[in-house]
């Protein structure tokens, strides 16, 4: 027992260290390189210099948003993989991101964010995501038994449908809305609104805390729903809460940064290889690792073809997808089954 706890703490420290390192790296590099040593003196000097505002008005918000969204998407991945007992499930592959994106698009077109305030953006994302989760779940239930086989196919199809619907909306929308949609759909961690960044941070940390309360239940779910019930887990209640939580995390992320795929797939897999499948450590370490991963990808996205910027989803897609294929061929273990 003691040994396990120490091992877990060491993993958290290592991943926390990596996160800190990546964040500092991300603060330093960019079109205007600022060496680490200089950062301390810049903070001491306070406001006023251009470099100060580059650091704290441009780069720091991106890092915080990357932390929140990377963590949130990874958490959503771990939760969904645990609930569906399928290692290939995540917000993107299940079409949940697509649903959230559709919700946000509708919001922009109907100008709900102007009428109801900026908070309606993540709210619409959440509703879109929740709708898709419920749809996918009920479509893959047959006679009370979850049919895993059709799950991914259903998810991919829902993704297609929602992206087609987004295209339809774009085709018939006014030019000024079109600009907003295109700008947002490209996927970027650039978010000028501090309030939304704070919301994202709040949602992702709250998500971590709430999902952690269900870590034992998720461990029981690994044996199947019926077995979890035998172990005294109120499966219906747990499912409801965790589905809502996963939708909230995904919807909030998508509404701020567009569709960023594969984070929720690759990060939990990768982490599982090292720390094992116990959700008591998997949730925390996936959150930390996902945060580092997205901050790193975003740093690449804004430096690779600087001064131009790539959509961060491109980087996570290429990096994440190929890493995943590599891991898949390398080790069978990480699939969690034989």
């Amino acid at each position, binding site marked *: 027992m003691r040994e396990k706890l120490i091992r877990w703490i060491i993993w958290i420290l290592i991943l926390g260290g990596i996160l800190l390192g990546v964040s500092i790296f991300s603060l330093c590099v960019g079109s205007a390189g600022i060496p680490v040593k200089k950062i301390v003196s810049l903070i001491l000097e306070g406001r006023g210099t251009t470099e100060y505002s580059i650091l704290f008005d441009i780069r720091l918000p991106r890092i915080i948003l990357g932390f929140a969204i990377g963590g949130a998407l990874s958490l959503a991945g771990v939760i969904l993989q645990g609930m569906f007992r399928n290692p290939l499930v995540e917000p993107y592959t299940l079409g949940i991101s697509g649903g959230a994106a559709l919700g946000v698009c509708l919001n922009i077109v109907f100008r709900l964010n102007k009428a109801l305030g900026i908070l309606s953006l993540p709210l619409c994302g959440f509703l879109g995501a929740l709708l898709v989760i419920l749809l996918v779940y009920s479509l893959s239930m047959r*006679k009370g038994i979850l049919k895993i086989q059709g799950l991914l196919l259903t998810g991919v199809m829902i993704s297609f449908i929602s992206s087609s619907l987004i295209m339809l909306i774009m085709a018939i929308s006014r030019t000024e809305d079109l600009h907003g949609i295109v700008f947002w759909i490209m996927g970027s961690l650039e978010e000028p609104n501090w309030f939304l960044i704070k919301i994202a941070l709040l949602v992702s940390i709250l998500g971590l805390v709430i999902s*952690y309360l269900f870590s034992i239940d998720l461990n*029981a779910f*690994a*044996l199947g729903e*019926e077995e979890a*019930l*035998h*172990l005294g*887990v109120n499966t219906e209640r747990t499912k409801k809460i965790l589905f809502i939580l996963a939708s909230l995390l995904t919807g909030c992320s998508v509404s701020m940064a567009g569709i960023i795929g594969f984070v929720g797939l690759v990060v939990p897999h990768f982490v599982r290889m090292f720390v094992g499948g116990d959700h008591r450590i998997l949730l925390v370490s996936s959150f930390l690792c996902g945060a580092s991963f997205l901050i790193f990808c975003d740093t690449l996205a804004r430096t690779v073809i600087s001064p131009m910027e790539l959509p961060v989803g491109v980087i996570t897609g290429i990096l994440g997808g190929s890493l995943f294929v590599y891991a898949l061929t390398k080790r069978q273990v990480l699939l969690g089954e034989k």
Partner: protein
Amino acid sequence: MLNIKNLTCGYDSKIVLRDISLRIESRELVGIIGPNGSGKTTLLRAITKIIKPAKGEILFEGKNIEELRYKELAKNIAVVSQSPAINFMSVEEFVLLGRIPHYKRFQFLETNKDKEIAKKCAILTDTLKLKDRPMPEISGGERQLTLIARALTQEPKLLLLDEPTAHLDITHQAAILDLIRRLNREFGLTVIMVLHDLNLASEYCHRLVLINEGRIYKTGLPQEVLNYRIIEEVYKTVVVVEKNPISFKPYILVVSEEERQKRGER
């Protein structure tokens, strides 16, 4: 201990069990037998609240199980299912999952007491030596023992087993049923198990419940239930019932069609 009153239940619109009434006393070892699809597993699922009764009720120690929380139920009733999903975890981690119903709110780590109980159950089931092996790599017999160890870790009063001897060789069949007998004798554990093998059911159970087409056909001692008329009626198969020369329990021999025809010709 368990009192099932006029239970009728099933899935969606299809009724599987009709008007089942059954009392299980404390420290009993009851075998449930019956042809495929007669509703044996459904009965177990009703006892663990996976399916709700359409009519009737199930009382556990005098309380209606509908009013008990899943967690409360899991502290008292443990289940060894037929073939649950096996994940990539070590045998030790798997057995420790049995402590989940005893976790307090906001408790995330198992206590030393949890560990000790899990170890005790592993020793009892002779699975301690497998402790660090991954679940997918152990044999079928070992897996069944591990499942029983996990169920015992719940510290139940009532143990339900769904065909614990399916797909096992006679060594493991006897080992598992001997273990269950011992648990029943030494620790006073009440056991209900679904068995397909009539001879094993006869040899190991105190009392048998024969279910046919969703109704209880007969319940009683093995020698009362297992006579050739009842078996030929329920299973639609010609059998000969003899007595085990050592235990004096009935055992059933199947007569093949060819032999039957030969006899008929004579």
